[in-house]
């Protein structure tokens, strides 16, 4: 990372190291929350489907992260005629 180290090196290995460091710093942040969102989405789907018939496509889960706050946004669209209608209680 330091300037002198970079100048001293002759080969392409330092370039490889820098590229990897930048890429992985990005991927670690990007892949972490995405997995969490996917898990949350699956579990929310299962929970809602137990009580209301709805289109799984109409569930959106978003996570936004900034330095000070993180927000989790869950948006479920349910057709009005289905609201309150319960399928079988046994559906798990």
């Amino acid at each position, binding site marked *: 990372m330091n300037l002198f180290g970079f100048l001293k*090196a*002759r*080969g*392409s*290995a*330092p370039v*490889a*190291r820098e*590229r*990897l*460091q930048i*890429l*992985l710093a990005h*991927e*670690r942040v990007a*892949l*972490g929350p995405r*997995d969490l969102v996917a898990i949350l989405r699956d579990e929310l789907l299962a929970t809602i489907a137990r009580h209301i018939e709805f289109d799984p496509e109409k569930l959106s889960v978003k996570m936004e992260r900034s330095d000070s706050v993180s927000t989790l946004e869950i948006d479920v669209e349910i057709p009005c005629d289905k609201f309150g209608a319960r399928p079988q209680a046994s559906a798990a």
Partner: protein
Amino acid sequence: MSKVIVVTSGKGGVGKTTSTASLGAALAQGGRRVCVVDFDVGLRNLDLVMGAERRVVFDFINVAQGDAKLAQALIRDKRIDTLHLLAASQTRDKDALTTEGVERVIGELRDTFDYVLCDSPAGIERGALLAMRHADQAIVVANPEVSSVRDSDRIIGLLDSKTLRAERGEQMEKHLLLTRFDPARSNSGEMLSIEDVLEILSIPLLGVIPESREILRASNIGAPVTINAAGGPARLAYLEAARRLGGETTAPVAIPDEKKTFFTRLFSRRAA
């Protein structure tokens, strides 16, 4: 006390199977009861590298599905009494292994062996996840090359989230085995250095295996490099890694030297 260790990498062709066979043979040579298990359903190769390809009658899937007993499927090595192989199925599709089946077989293996080494398939699909699921410890095999290091980083993330240990909130012990290392090219700055890879992946080092002709020769003849008395630096590096794995040494990892005299320069740095 039995230990289940997954040998994994993400990327293919970096040396998972070679390393599984070499470390398994070295541990067994030290008198431990070892079973090497091939998880690469449909593309099995551990049998070939171990020189047991003509002795496979029943495989992992036969046992997992209850069609054969574990004892019927285990292949005992002809050179080392305490070394056994459980081959993958070559014909079945990769979904034939079920989570429950794997759990039961691993449980039985734990009762019989000191070490169970699971040779993971490449990738991050079902087979790779099944191979790591029950592990107590992981060996991440990587080459000093960008795509391998990136994939290793991804695998480390999965080891920390998709394994039983991770789900129970326990630590998964992970070690790096750097293979196909060329000291001359690394010294001249053409190849990532060991320090570079350790800094990027930040897991402790198990061993550094130099690029060597011995490895191809070993797979040609179906004898793990560690049991070949005529072996050179790669054999010594695997033997040392096996001693570290077995807790027989905590000395710094010996680093292959570009000069004729190998293992003269000791590497003292261990990450994390």
